[in-house]
């Protein structure tokens, strides 16, 4: 299996483990991730108004560079921005026309690239049953909560990643690597996002509420696909703390390819 791969800016720096463990795990699973040449930042957030064209262009360039194949993302935010932009290109003529004018000199884009999250690759292409067979170091007995956050799920209609109100993909992933998934009510709510810089108190409020809910349900640790959730869950927890890891870190551990 060969895919184009868009790592995104944070995975080259603060969230290196998300990237490194993904690459090692992919290799162990026989998946080739070909990093796009000269990719640019996805923009980090999707602009929710119709007249923001320029801020979606770097995402279109990534789609264009993947040349109509499947483009794999690891970070919830990159996934969100790229998938929504890919959707807009095909659904919104006004956006498509204007973006195409900007891109005219770099050659066109035919709208064919499909953006997929690595979790979707594991579920839909590798298959969780197959993944389970490749696990050499099952994480038996560990009670792990999935922190989905918002960006990987919503809007459900466009992202089509999982049921936005009752997702199971990360719990199924946790089962496949031999651990015990623990569901808790706030797993698909916001971590506080970028508002952490504007009003730290409101990020603390979101995080404390999520962590309380996870601890009440019996989670010993959490996993996420999002560097921003990771930051808030770790840095803005005031009441209780839980260890938080990227999902790829546990995947690499289970596949026996994690260093250190």
């Amino acid at each position, binding site marked *: 299996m060969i895919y184009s791969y868009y790592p995104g800016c944070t995975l080259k720096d603060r969230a290196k483990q998300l990237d490194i463990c993904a690459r090692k795990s992919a290799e162990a699973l026989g998946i080739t991730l070909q990093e796009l040449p000269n990719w640019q930042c996805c923009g980090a957030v999707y602009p929710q108004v119709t007249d923001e064209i320029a801020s979606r262009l770097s995402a279109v360039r990534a789609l264009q560079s993947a040349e109509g194949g499947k483009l794999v993302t690891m970070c919830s935010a990159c996934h969100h921005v790229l998938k929504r932009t890919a959707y807009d290109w095909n659904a919104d003529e006004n956006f498509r026309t204007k973006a195409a004018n900007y891109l005219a000199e770099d050659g066109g884009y035919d709208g064919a690239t499909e953006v997929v999250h690595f979790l979707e690759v594991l579920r839909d292409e590798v298959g969780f049953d197959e993944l389970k067979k490749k696990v050499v170091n099952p994480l038996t007995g560990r009670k792990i909560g999935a922190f989905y956050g918002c960006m990987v799920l*919503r809007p459900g209609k466009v992202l089509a990643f999982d049921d936005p109100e009752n997702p199971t993909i990360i719990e199924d992933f946790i089962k496949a690597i031999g651990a015990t998934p623990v569901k808790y009510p706030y797993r698909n709510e916001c971590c506080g*996002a970028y508002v*952490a810089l504007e009003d730290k108190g409101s990020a603390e409020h979101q995080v404390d*509420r999520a962590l309380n809910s996870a601890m009440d349900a019996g989670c010993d640790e959490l996993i996420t696909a999002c560097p921003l959730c990771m930051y808030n869950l*770790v840095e803005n927890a005031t009441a209780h703390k839980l260890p938080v890891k990227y999902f790829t870190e546990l995947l690499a551990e289970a596949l026996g390819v994690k260093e250190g």
Partner: protein
Amino acid sequence: MENNAKFLTETALRISGVNPRKCMKCGKCSGTCPNYDAMEYHPHQFVAMVEKGQIEKLMQSKSIYLCLSCMACVERCPRGVEPGKLVEAVRLMQIRQQDKNHKGARDIPEFADESVPQQLLMAAMRKYRK
């Protein structure tokens, strides 16, 4: 509605794609909003106030910087009104004006040390400035 209010209302509706007249005032958006307590105007009020043309009040309110863009209200509104898009539109209408950036590189608080991911800084600069 006076002319300026009319113009602002039309702009907000056009760039957000929201139709406030679909709202049945059930309050579910505000019930699900994780930052309800911090916001002076709540998502259902955004919808009602835009419908009444009270955009300037919203543009001056801190609430536009406290919305998390979590899309809970967008996903859960039973009428597909998607109030979060209106909040985004009003915030952009405010910061797109000359000299109205809400934050710049100098406003990054001291606690934001090397643990802060690039994604957070990039997101904040995209949401809070032109």
